[in-house]
């Protein structure tokens, strides 16, 4: 099973410097946060889909389709009860749904989905190493960045071992599918202990292998990855900054808002 989302393509988006991508995705998050009118949000969402297409990240959108759909649906169903608007549509006791709160809910659904979409575009086009390298170039100390990237790296390894452990214990008659929550918690021991021991052994081995290859986190090192800020990077950052500022300006002028809140 592959839990990583990186898609090895060669689009202009992939070729951007990881620093651009990190800052760029933050700007995208910013743009996503600006509006709360469903039509404006729909425009933002559409823009992200187009961007996703340009970055060839759509397969990951498809992979996450259930999560995306779920976010939109849940948000649309739940938000109306928490946001209050001036034009009531329906009420039942203290529960009240207004025209604005409904629109706001749709916008929030789109906002959440857009958030995920922006993140997906980033993860689809940036490898683990590029990401950490970008963070280092932005000033994160190497040991911290290394720990971060290694932790990310170990997730699928442990997930794989965990799957094997579950199968091994099922073969010995462990019934993981029945029982109440307390009984199920007790069943965690036969799964958790081997996984924990595996994790300790594995990390110990990894530490051995790293040291044997001359690894010393405190010392300076060179980099094979050598991303450069090129013209495309500056253009991308400039465009995103302008878009963000423009969106902010519009919102401050009162556009793209159904309720006076975030």
């Amino acid at each position: 099973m592959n839990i990583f989302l990186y898609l090895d393509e060669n689009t202009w988006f992939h070729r951007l410097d990881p620093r651009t991508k990190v800052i760029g995705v933050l700007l995208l998050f910013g743009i996503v946060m600006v509006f709360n009118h469903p039509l404006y949000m729909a425009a933002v969402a559409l823009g992200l889909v187009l961007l996703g297409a340009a970055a060839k990240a759509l397969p990951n959108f498809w992979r996450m389709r259930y999560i995306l759909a779920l976010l939109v649906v849940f948000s649309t169903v739940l938000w109306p009860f928490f946001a209050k608007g001036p034009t009531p549509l329906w009420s039942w006791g203290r529960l009240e749904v207004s025209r604005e709160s409904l629109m706001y809910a749709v916008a929030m659904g789109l906002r959440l989905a857009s958030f995920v979409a922006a993140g997906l575009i980033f993860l689809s086009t940036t490898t683990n190493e590029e990401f950490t390298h970008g963070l280092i170039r932005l000033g994160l100390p190497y040991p911290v960045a290394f720990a971060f990237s290694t932790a990310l790296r170990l997730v699928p390894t442990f997930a794989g071992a965990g799957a094997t452990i579950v199968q091994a214990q099922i073969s010995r008659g462990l019934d993981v599918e029945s029982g109440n929550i307390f009984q199920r918690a007790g069943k965690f021991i036969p799964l958790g202990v081997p996984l924990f021991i595996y994790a300790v052994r594995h990390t110990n081995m990894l530490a051995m292998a790293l040291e044997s290859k001359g690894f010393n986190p405190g010392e300076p090192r060179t980099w094979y990855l050598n991303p450069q800020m090129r013209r495309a990077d500056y253009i991308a950052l400039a465009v995103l900054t302008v878009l963000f500022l423009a969106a902010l300006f519009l919102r401050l002028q009162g556009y793209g808002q159904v309720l006076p809140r975030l």
Partner: protein
Amino acid sequence: MGVAISIQDLSFTYAETTRPALQRVNGEVEEGTFVVIMGHEGAGKSTLCCSLNALVPRFFRGEYAGRVVVHDVEVAKARVADMSRRVGLVLQDFEAQLFSTSVELEVAFGPENLRLPRDEIERRIDRYLRFVGLADMRRREPASLSGGQKQRLAIASVLALEPLVLVMDEPTTDLDPLGREEVLSVSDLLRQERRTLLVVDHDPDTAVDADQVWLMREGEIVAQGPPRQVLTDLALLEVCGVQPPPTVALFQALGWPGQPLTVEEAIARIQEHGLARPRPLKPPTSPVNGRPVILELRDVDYVYPTRAVEALKGVNLQIREGEFLALVGQNGSGKTTLAKHLNGLLKPTRGEVFFRGRPLGEIRRTEMARFVGYVFQNPDHQIFSNTVREEVGFSLRMAGMNPKAIEERVAEALAVVGLSGYEEEVPFTLTKGERQRVAVASVLAAQPQVIILDEPTTGLDYRHQRSMMEMLRDLHRRGHTVIIITHSMWVAAEYAERVVVMKDGRILLDAPTRAAFAQEQTLAEASLRPPPLLRLGNWLGTSGITLEAMVEELGTG
């Protein structure tokens, strides 16, 4: 030529243990030579490897005495990171060594630590990926490689540091036969480059071309010398828990002249001295087991949902009660997928599986554990209890048995695996071989009629492999149906009655053991080869499988 490694009176005891891991070890390795280290589990081979790049005593603390000098540097006084320019270490567990998201970055890691400039790193990535034959996989994700490719990548990532000495600690143990060959061909290349190379391996085949073989036992080196001298001392090999070259054993048992280390050499000897005349091979037709079918796969296809890869394609298989069956084939050929259908862990995408004529879909999974036991490859994937008793009794407690009956069953199961008296031991502190037995016992305790074992001998030394397989033979004699998945051809040959060869999700060959191993061509299609003794037997036309049977046939003929 100078001395690359010199070890003087090296002793080491790990912290918090009392038994020394190494005792007064002495040795010298000339520059550009190839040394193979052999010995039983716990003989100190890995400790010796780690003492060459300062992991011992820097990473593993303990009581250290003696001197190890590698290319004029005293190891104990150096740091591991500094030793990495002199000694490269490749570990058995290739999964744990790889951690990058692409092949090229994996190789770049070492040179980056050495603070090499970028174009030099580029040059080394190029050179060493080409060297191990992975040049066209630069952008691949290491997790997507096969076992052999992963280990070759691990070798390249160490070679990129351009160490003066390369040490490989059981680099082929976890690999299938094809992966093994891939890795060994890389070590051949290294030898041609006259690099100093130390390899720990269990297979006498690897040691044949060595300049020196070191034989270890209980932390000591008991023999050092050219392979022809060390590998022909069968009594000593036995004591060290090392598999003797079967051709040497055969020639010695028959009193034939010469000590051939390989099959090719044996054939040359036989022709030269006219020791035996090859005859057409007539594999014995083993009597058909007329007992009822216990497990059956009918037209089974299986597609892994996450990968959309067809792992099984139209598999039909009947297993009768009381059979001893070996499933062989490369990794990814579908052996494990097939086996997991036999206890219902996987449900076929198409087709059906039957247990005693009942479709598996009708049997509850927890109930299935009492019919078909499944021992996973790595015992550490299932051991979780504080005592052996609790561990072995787990499945019985799950089935809700009363404590007294559990006690009896546990004692019985431990007796079968030869661990009586271990009830109160802590499973985690046992040796790998013993943990493997605990895992088998914990499956046996449920008294399943069928017992499936995934790679029961991998990671065990020769002695433990033998005793594990003798134990399975014993279970088989008691009437259990035994199914093993194995990469070890001699294990399949000596113990199984029937061999099923898998390739690309299909059954390529399904025959009684001797007949199966007579079909060298078909086996080659699955990248398999009969074990040495049977290759010789195929040439000679003998129908026996074991050494004893061949001695009898050839001695009288």
